């Protein structure tokens, strides 16, 4: 494990980065160790000395803070992927229907979204709802997932009729049938940029740089596209 690269990754990107890391190791012979967690948790750990080389966050704020605090190699901060928000349902009652229609007409019991305070996808969902003046109408039917994967659980298990989830989640081999899905226009909310940084206390800056470069290369781009992200 000593020669391997230690990457802290936001949970929602864990599946995708696994695929990318496999390609990276195949290309460079450098093994990669992935530790996943919520962006906030990983951040707290890094501030308190966690032994990671690279931090792939699900937002922009935390990498920025690390860079400003000198915990990240300055200039290493890059946007490695941009997520897409989807309104989604697994409720058979809505199969073949239009998700957007259902949302606007109020034809649902519960609407799930990530907590806007803690998750960028949640913030995006809220911005969208505000842009269509639907905040009021939905407020008493909204349930908040702590993160985007919990939001998906709410919908996937039928506890919420509709939910704002990430496109990448729908591409990762869902165990349930999709009833309907509607891509939320990217213009209706701030871009869902996911940024990564190389951490200053990394003992393998060269390998880390190599990984970051690979992450932005063509091989990775294909994987990212396939997984539901757009490449910046």
């Amino acid at each position, binding site marked *: 494990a000593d020669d391997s690269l230690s990457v802290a990754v936001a949970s929602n990107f864990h599946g995708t980065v696994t695929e990318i890391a496999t390609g990276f190791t195949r290309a460079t012979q450098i093994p990669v160790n992935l530790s996943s967690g919520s962006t906030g948790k990983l951040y707290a750990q890094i501030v308190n000395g966690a032994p990671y080389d690279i931090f792939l966050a699900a937002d922009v704020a935390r990498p920025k803070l690390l860079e400003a605090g000198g915990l990240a190699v300055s200039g290493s901060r890059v946007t490695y992927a941009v997520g897409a928000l989807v309104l989604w349902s697994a409720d058979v009652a809505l199969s073949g229907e239009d998700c957007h229609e259902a949302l606007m007409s109020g034809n649902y019991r*519960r609407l*799930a979204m990530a907590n806007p*305070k*803690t998750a960028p996808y949640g913030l995006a969902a809220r911005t969208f709802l505000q842009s269509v003046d639907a905040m009021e109408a939905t407020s008493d039917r909204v349930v*908040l*997932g*702590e993160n985007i994967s919990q939001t998906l*659980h709410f919908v996937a298990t*039928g*506890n919420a009729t509709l939910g704002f989830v990430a496109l990448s989640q729908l591409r990762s081999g869902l165990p349930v049938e999709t009833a309907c899905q509607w891509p939320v226009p990217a213009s209706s909310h701030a871009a869902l940029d996911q940024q990564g940084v190389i951490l200053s206390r990394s003992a393998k800056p060269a390998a880390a740089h190599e990984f970051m470069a690979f992450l932005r290369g063509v091989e990775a781009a294909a994987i990212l596209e396939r997984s539901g992200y757009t490449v910046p």
Partner: protein
Amino acid sequence: MDFGPLWLSARLAFVTSLVLIVLGAPLAWWLSQTRSRWQPVVQAIVAMPIVLPPTVLGFYLLILLGPKGAIGAWWVELSGDALTFSFTGLVIASCVYSLPFAIQPLQNAFESLPRKTIEAAWTLGASRLDAFFSVAVPLSLRGFVSAIVLSFAHTLGEFGVVLMVGGNIPGETRVVSIAIYDHVETLNYAAAHQLSLVLIAFAFVALFGMFLINRRWQSK
């Protein structure tokens, strides 16, 4: 400062301990009295809920209590309302999660009751149920205190299950542990510290009072 989540937590912890005591006492009594070969099996099953990570337990409960789940569907039929994302759902989930903490101390207390005392109650005209309530329960006070303390505190600090089953709805299912968690996640450390302190102070006063009363009672 918003005290809503704290009150909600207190209410949840209170109701949960209450339900656990009411349901746990008979189960613990059975476990302590039976000579069935199944006793250690049941005892081990009762301990299972804490073996699963709370979030995972929460996930399974989400399925089970959801409108398509075995219990959830039945509940929807019964009451027209979903169990998940409601206070009732939270109580059920918390009870499952804290069950072992209520059962163990109660069972220990019941097991150390002298059998003759119970038999004396029977011969005095108390049915088995009556003897349980009028003799076994009051003589096992120490076990009840432990059970209440453990399940109360455990519910206060509960988080993964509550987050999953509750859905973080302000005033309904946003308990104080979620509120603190949110503060930590959003790097709002000062608010997190403050709320943690209030929670600890509240829990301390509640438990301290309980221990004090218990001590007085015992030494009487």
